[in-house]
């Protein structure tokens, strides 16, 4: 087993553990590289048939290429896809900066989705290396009934043992990719030949390293027009992955507050 095999085996265990012990269960698919790799892992875990629905928290503001890629994969992979429309921007706190408003819409959209589907578990493709508060999260991470995260009192997790029960009304965020890094995702995507949205590849000297809403996500300067070139680029860069995501940078603890309030 090489390092990607080990990562894959652990993620499959987590997916199967979630399905065995947490029902009803759903999965968020942002159509980005991470959650698409996660979908592929779920197909492996459940021998080709993902036994729960997958949802996009749809703000209507994704890039057209993202929607097109989504539709292709739903068809080809025969996904049980449920679009989850986020509440309109007019319903969220208007004093928030633009990126904060988008995050607030998704946070609300997720709350509504979890409440509507009565999910006790939501599988998400976040990783520890993306952002410092994500680095401290758990693989099975409980959220209170209002979606909030009590990061100062997290359950123990050791070996392959997780706390999989939650009180009624509360839910678990389940993070099978928590231990992966950005470059792991790309190396795995290349090895397994997993499809990904073309926006990640450079066009006219720019590419998207992280995909968010089109009004609040900026591309990076890059000549990486192939997946090999992306991997080479990541091996040498020291710029953070989410530098192009405005929502993280509007204040020092912007992302911590987003996450404590229920953001992914």
């Amino acid at each position, binding site marked *: *087993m*090489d*390092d990607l*095999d*080990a990562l*894959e*085996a652990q993620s*499959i*265990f987590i997916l*199967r*553990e979630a*399905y*065995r012990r947490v029902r009803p269960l759903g999965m968020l698919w942002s159509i980005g590289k991470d959650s698409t790799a996660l979908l592929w892992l779920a*197909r*492996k*875990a*459940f*021998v*080709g*048939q993902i036994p729960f629905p997958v949802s996009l928290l749809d703000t209507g503001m994704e890039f057209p290429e993202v929607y097109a890629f989504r539709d292709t994969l739903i068809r080809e992979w025969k996904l049980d896809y449920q679009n989850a429309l986020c509440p309109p921007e007019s319903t969220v706190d208007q004093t928030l900066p633009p990126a904060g408003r988008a995050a607030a819409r998704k946070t609300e959209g997720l709350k509504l989705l979890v409440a509507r589907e009565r999910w006790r578990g939501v599988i998400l493709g976040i990783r*520890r*290396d993306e952002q*410092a*508060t994500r*680095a*401290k999260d*758990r693989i099975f991470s409980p959220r209170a009934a209002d979606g909030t995260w009590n*990061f*100062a009192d*997290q*359950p*123990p*997790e*050791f*070996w392959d*043992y*997780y*706390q*999989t*029960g*939650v009180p009624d009304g509360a839910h678990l965020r389940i993070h099978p990719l928590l*231990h992966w*890094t950005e470059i792991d995702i790309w190396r795995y995507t290349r090895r397994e030949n997993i499809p990904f949205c073309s926006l990640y590849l450079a066009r006219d000297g720019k590419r998207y390293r992280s995909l968010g809403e089109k009004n609040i996500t900026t591309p990076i300067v890059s000549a990486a027009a192939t997946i090999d070139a992306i991997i080479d680029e990541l091996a040498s860069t*020291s*710029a*953070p992955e989410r*530098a192009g995501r405005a929502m993280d940078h509007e204040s*020092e*603890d912007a992302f*911590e507050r987003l996450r404590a309030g229920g953001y992914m």
Partner: protein
Amino acid sequence: MRTFPVVFTGHVDHGKSTLVSRLLLDTGYFPDGKLTELERAAQRRGVPLEISFLLDSFQVERDQAITIDATRIWFCTAARRYAVIDAPGHREFVRHMVSGAADALAAVVVVDAAEGLGEQTRRHALLLPLVGVTRAIVAVNKMDTVGFSAARYAAVKAELEALFVQTGLTLAATVPTVARDGDNVARPSTRMPWYGGPSLLEALELLDGSQARGGPVRFAVHDVYRRDEERILVGNVGAGRIQAGATLTFAPSRDRARVKRIVRFPASDEPAVAGEAIGMTLDHPIFVGPGDVASEIGTPPQIAAAVKATVFWLDRVPLAIGEHLRMRCGTRDVTVVLDAISGAIDIETFEERPTAALARNDIAQVTLRGLGPLVVDLHPAPLARFALYRGDAVGGGGIVRTVVARSDAPEGSAVNDSSLPPRVTALDRMRRYGHRGLVVWLTGGTAGDAPALAAHVEAALFFAGAVTAVVVAEERAAGGARLAADADDGAAARRCAAAAAALADAGCIAIVVAPGATRADLAYARDLVPGAFIDVRLRARLAADADGVDDGTDMSPAERESAADVVIDDDPARSTRELLALIRAAAAPR
């Protein structure tokens, strides 16, 4: 590139987070913009920049300059990639330390040169080998505060060597450091010319990074999926190789079957290797479910009624002798009783002190008795590692040291031991057995139905861990204590009542099948066990049968029904379930 996970531990304020941050800084890890972001944050608070702010990502952590939860961060050298796990040192956060350390291949233990060993240093030195980390590098930090004294360094080093010998941790290297300034972290120090050893980073690079998964074949069945009429057993190969055609034995049933096919998506029939997540189908249907463990013939895991284990307890509410917990070992969940605590380990002396309960953060040698069969290997095999759940919450964990076939008496306790309580109370029995003693008086039904139902229900209770007995008043009934009816009317029913009451007093769930009991017999039986008696009447399927099974009673079937506590229909599909639910409710601890 293989990742080498390493956990940084140490007593609070000995400088762990600073050391990690310095390591990252000096290996060029810092992302662009991170330093200026932190400088700005420090300015706003009017405090000097602490490089540990890099890891202490929560606002509250930076405000209080403490680490709340284990974090994980990656850096690369030419040789390999490191996953650094930075675990909090505060006493109340040991569970986060355990959460972080369980993944690590080695530890870096940070010790303040001036303060020497702290309580957490000792606790971590004890915990690390328990969670599977056997090697540690020690950074004797803040050497500037002791004037870079070689003598002070040697004294702290000697203390650590003695500690590690006691806990079974291998001391891979000791390095004198000043994390804040970078001395001997990733580059050598000019301020300690007396030290000729490696820097911390060099010492890390010298550690062997292979993750051997040796040992005989283990496959813990995680779940069973149905695909196209096939039952696919899924799980991760714990050790060994498995290929199509291999004969596997499943514990605890000891049933055997051959692997028909290794199932993967996309399909591939390569042999499965240790660590891999796979599926498999078997050549013939045997009953196998989640929690069973497959092995090769001749090298099975242990199937135990009870185990002696070293446990760490993490929950705020103490764990008392007699408490029921759920033990998850591999993928198997079994209810266990904490039968005995042979000693909780004193952190100062490492001596074992007797105790009746484990407090949060205690580490102790205990006996756990399963209410069903436990399937385990012995430490240090992976299948020796378990978690203990109290309700839904992870309360603690541990490792299996030895297995015990029977665990009725805690080892070392003697009949005249003055530390034992003077007698065993009903509460003691309830705590151990997980239920109250109870008499279930079962009559009625079509001939032969009541004894069969009693046997079924007893089996369901027994194999779920209950202590049970069936008392039957008729010669022809199979199993249980047979008390022959004789000429003396009512004597058989009353003897049954007395036997059942004695069993119930001993904590047992006794099911009595005694047709022919009179109204007076029933009153007598009920009075023997106040509050622990249920009279259950099976309504006959055919009215014509009703009289035949109740010779000798002084009540008509209708009167018998109205006298009973509960009447259930004699319907084979439902009666077992209904009676079980009834008994479980009545016997539930309260």
